[in-house]
């Protein structure tokens, strides 16, 4: 079932292409050339975690500045840079890559595949995201970090530097950086789509797929269609800024609102790109720890798809105050209300899953339960925004900040933490400490609510967003102070998690293959997952296939354990033996995706500084990398080719 035995690869003579093909699959340097989806998944996760800490520190600085009126820790310019980078980081460098990391690791495992469809494109996507992030952050040392907001409204961002609207190269770095990150996430998305559609194990029909994989499929489609829109918008911003085009110049026939339409046509699907993976994780965790199947599987899946579609039809709700007229805003107000329906259905189905179950309150489960409650609160304040006249008061106030943090922190981040505790043993072969985990959960829950709940009130009583200071005497002081205290409790919670990670890394690698009594295929293989995932490609016979190999139901629908059902063959861990027995051909490591990815930031600097000399090394890296990549077989032929037998085996 591996896709890597194309005949050309096996018959072509190995030809050295300047760079000798890397062979190592272990050791420090192997991380730079690995095309193993699991290692790439870990790298995505680690990268996102580092950026989560960076974005969190930015948030803490913001909160300290706002702890009291007329804060003086930061200048206006520093504050504007920090809220821009906090938003950009959390969306593009934390939320998306973390979800892609989980997806990378677990989508192939959940569908019973040995690898992804495009291992090298997958590797390329990771390095582009890493380089894109480093490129964005290098702006701090190279002429000014982005300071136009993560949404970068024109004409503020598109006015040339000489226009004085926004000084420095920040907006250039931002526009080019987003284009790069878009290339990375589109690569990942295409890989997910093809992997999920083409590489499922026999019997793994679409409607037997775990919900997390389903949601990653929806997310991949959303990403593939949304990123081109924002890419176009960024290129227009960059051209207006540097080449005197007039896309957004009102005095020359351009329209600043064109940008907002483009950005939110990307930006709203982006919100679902961020939250759907969280919903997917929760849909895995809740059934596992309730010992019950997901309530209304097909409805949950279809709600996810419906959210994916409807997500394209609500973008104007970010623009209710722009003066589009009553008909347009009524239509988009109604479509926004509509999207609450499939979302509500999911919430009830999750509660239905837990109802009547046998609930084990593990850390993973606590985070998933927290997700349900916190995400619901975020959804409800979202419904208040669909009440357009009310939104004209709340827009651009702290009420909105409260709303989307309930969705993205209370939702996505809680979901991701749930995923950490749930999947950690499968990834690293070690269980995260549950006692620290519970401290982690409760501090985050308390800190989160203390930080973000008062923001609802502050918004309603008039506090606007994106302001680096506020006057005393407006009655906002106490709540802001509470929020700042809350932010530090969140930081403490995150610190507890990091301590847990370090603490766990020192423990023996002794996690069971199936520590939670899991349901999906990733629990049928040893922990950590071996390089080839499945020694034998599973034959899937049911939804929650692994569960059904362990349990059956009696006449009353009660669980009955099958005798000796679902034993994981730990002998599968004997790599040499398994490879010999099963003739597994995994794609070989490669340098070239890294080389191609390295060309992009060079071209990025060429664009930001309009420096033609940087174009040459950038293009050279890019073209050489693509050319060599194209000529390199995906799997290096082995000295003894087991081809006839392999073909015969099918």
């Amino acid at each position, binding site marked *: 079932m591996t896709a890597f035995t194309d005949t050309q690869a096996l018959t072509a003579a190995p030809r050295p292409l300047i760079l000798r093909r890397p062979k190592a699959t272990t050791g420090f340097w192997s991380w730079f050339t690995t095309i193993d989806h699991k290692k790439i998944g870990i790298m995505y996760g680690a990268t996102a975690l580092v950026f989560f800490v960076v974005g969190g520190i930015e948030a803490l600085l913001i909160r300290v500045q706002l702890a009291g009126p007329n804060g003086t820790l930061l200048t206006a310019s520093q504050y504007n840079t920090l809220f821009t980078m906090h938003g950009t980081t959390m969306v593009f460098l934390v939320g998306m890559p973390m979800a892609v990391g989980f997806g990378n690791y677990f989508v192939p495992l959940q569908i019973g595949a040995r690898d992804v469809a495009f291992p090298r494109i997958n590797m390329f996507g990771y390095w582009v995201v890493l380089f894109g992030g480093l490129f964005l952050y290098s702006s701090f040392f190279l002429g000014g970090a982005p300071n136009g907001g993560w949404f970068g409204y024109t004409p503020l961002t598109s006015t040339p530097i*000489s226009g004085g609207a926004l000084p420095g190269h920040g907006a250039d770095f931002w526009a080019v950086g987003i284009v790069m990150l878009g290339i990375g996430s589109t690569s990942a998305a295409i890989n997910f789509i093809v992997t999920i559609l083409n590489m499922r194990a026999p019997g793994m029909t679409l409607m037997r797929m775990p919900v997390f994989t389903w949601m990653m499929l929806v997310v991949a489609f959303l990403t593939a269609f949304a990123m081109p829109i924002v890419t176009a918008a960024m290129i227009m911003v960059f051209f207006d800024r540097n080449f005197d085009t007039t896309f957004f110049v009102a005095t020359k026939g351009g329209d*600043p609102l064109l940008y907002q339409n483009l950005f939110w046509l990307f930006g709203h699907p982006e919100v679902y790109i961020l939250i759907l993976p969280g919903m997917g994780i929760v849909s895995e965790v809740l059934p596992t720890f309730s010992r019950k199947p997901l309530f209304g599987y097909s409805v949950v899946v279809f709600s996810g798809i419906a959210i994916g579609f409807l997500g394209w039809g609500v973008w104007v709700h970010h623009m209710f105050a722009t003066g589009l007229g009553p008909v347009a805003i009524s239509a988009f107000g109604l479509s926004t209300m509509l999207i609450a329906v499939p979302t509500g259905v999911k919430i009830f189905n999750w509660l239905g899953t837990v109802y009547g179950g046998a609930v084990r309150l593990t850390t993973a489960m606590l985070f998933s339960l927290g997700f349900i409650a916190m995400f619901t609160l975020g959804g409800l304040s979202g419904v208040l925004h669909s009440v357009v006249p009310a939104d*004209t*008061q709340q827009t651009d106030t702290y009420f909105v900040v409260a709303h989307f943090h309930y969705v993205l922190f209370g939702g996505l981040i809680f979901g991701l933490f749930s995923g950490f505790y749930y999947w950690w043993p499968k990834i690293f072969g070690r269980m995260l400490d549950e006692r620290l985990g519970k401290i982690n959960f409760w501090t985050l829950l308390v800190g989160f609510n203390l930080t973000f709940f008062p923001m609802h009130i502050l918004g309603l009583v008039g506090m*606007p967003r994106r302001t680096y200071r506020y006057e005393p005497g407006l009655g906002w002081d106490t709540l802001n102070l509470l929020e700042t205290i809350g932010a530090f409790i969140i930081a403490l919670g995150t610190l507890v998690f990091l301590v847990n990670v370090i603490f766990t890394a020192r423990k023996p690698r002794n996690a069971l293959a199936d520590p939670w009594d899991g349901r999906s295929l990733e629990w049928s293989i040893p922990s950590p997952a071996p390089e080839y995932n499945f020694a034998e490609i599973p034959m899937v016979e049911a939804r929650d296939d692994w569960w059904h190999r362990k349990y059956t139901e009696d006449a009353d629908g009660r669980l009955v354990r099958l005798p000796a059902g679902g034993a994981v063959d730990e002998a599968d861990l004997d790599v040499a033996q398994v490879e010999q027995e099963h003739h597994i051909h995994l794609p070989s490591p490669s340098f070239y995706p890294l080389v191609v990815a390295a060309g992009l930031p060079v071209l990025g600097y060429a664009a930001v500084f309009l420096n033609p000399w940087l174009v040459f090394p950038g293009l050279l890296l890019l073209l050489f990398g693509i050319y060599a990549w194209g000529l390199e077989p995906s799997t290096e032929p082995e000295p003894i080719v087991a081809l006839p037998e392999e073909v015969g085996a099918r």
Partner: protein
Amino acid sequence: MTPPRKSSRFVLAAGALALVVLAGCSQAQNNHQNSLDPHGADAEKINNLFTPVAVVAILVGIFITGATIYVAIRFRYRPGVNENPKQTHGNTRLEITWTIIPAVLLAIIAVPTVGTIFTLAEPPADNALQVTVIGKQWWWEFQYPDAKVTTANELHIPVNRDVAIKLRACDHGTCNVIHSFWVPELSGTRDVVPGRTNTLVISADQPGTYLGQCKEYCGLSHANMRFRVIAQSASDFEKWLSGQQQGPVNSLTTPGPDGNPVIADEPAPQLIQKFQCTNCHVFDDASTSTYAPNLTHLASRTTFASGYYELTHSNLVKWLQNAPGMIPMESQGCREIPQGICVGMPSFTENTPDGPNGKPLPEMTPDQANTIADWLLEQT
């Protein structure tokens, strides 16, 4: 840990949260920028729509949170009791029910929502006062076209009368960035978009000062781009308006030998010329404006710098000497940007702008600043 103790903890937490809510609300109750304390017809309509929907949202939020806690505790794992629960895979009737209930709830909310949207879009009354608002980085210009009056940062309106506002980001052939006009106690937000003329109707039901704030991030000093609406009785308003139509108390110019005006030979006008204030400001004609606030009747205002500072002698002296030290402005580094347009007032004590001869101007001494401030504060 037994369930009752746990639930009492939740009650405690919820109680604490409620206290926080109340504390926050009460502190800001009379801050003049409170959307929950409407003083205008439109703000009232919005609040009347918001309140019941918010109550429903809070109830649903409490219900779902409560249900989550309930199922987690009620169905917790008890070895030997429920470790092999009944495997329910779904229930079509239930699922249809909880699809329909939110849909119906939303439909009920949708009706008044759309109704209010169209009510708020209705044109103003015939006797409405016409005002044009122009958003700049980082201040507001208010024009009364019928009275030919231009002022800045303090919008005077008569009570109980519609004020029809036109919102623009462009004048004198150039456009600024997007700003957003928001006086929460009078009405909702409306953006100020280059190339468009947006409209908004506000009215105030009682005299008083209502605070406003630019709500769309517009660069460096967005936070400081505040303003205030001063609602007055009809007669007070007319009195104020006719005052604005008068010429200045102190004239910047006198008729020269050839009949054309020349800068008056008095200390303050000479200093105003020396420091090139007239490049951006207008001092003796309340009907026009250039790049910066019209100062003809500066002393009739209570605040300056977008309402951030009280208009006092000492504040004004500080401002004249080093405005970017009080409100961050892009003008601080503008001498480093060749051919750049400097946004905001320059400092006359640090990094001073170039004079007519291309050399930096000398620093403004405290005496000079005092002289100008005295003169300006007589301009009622």
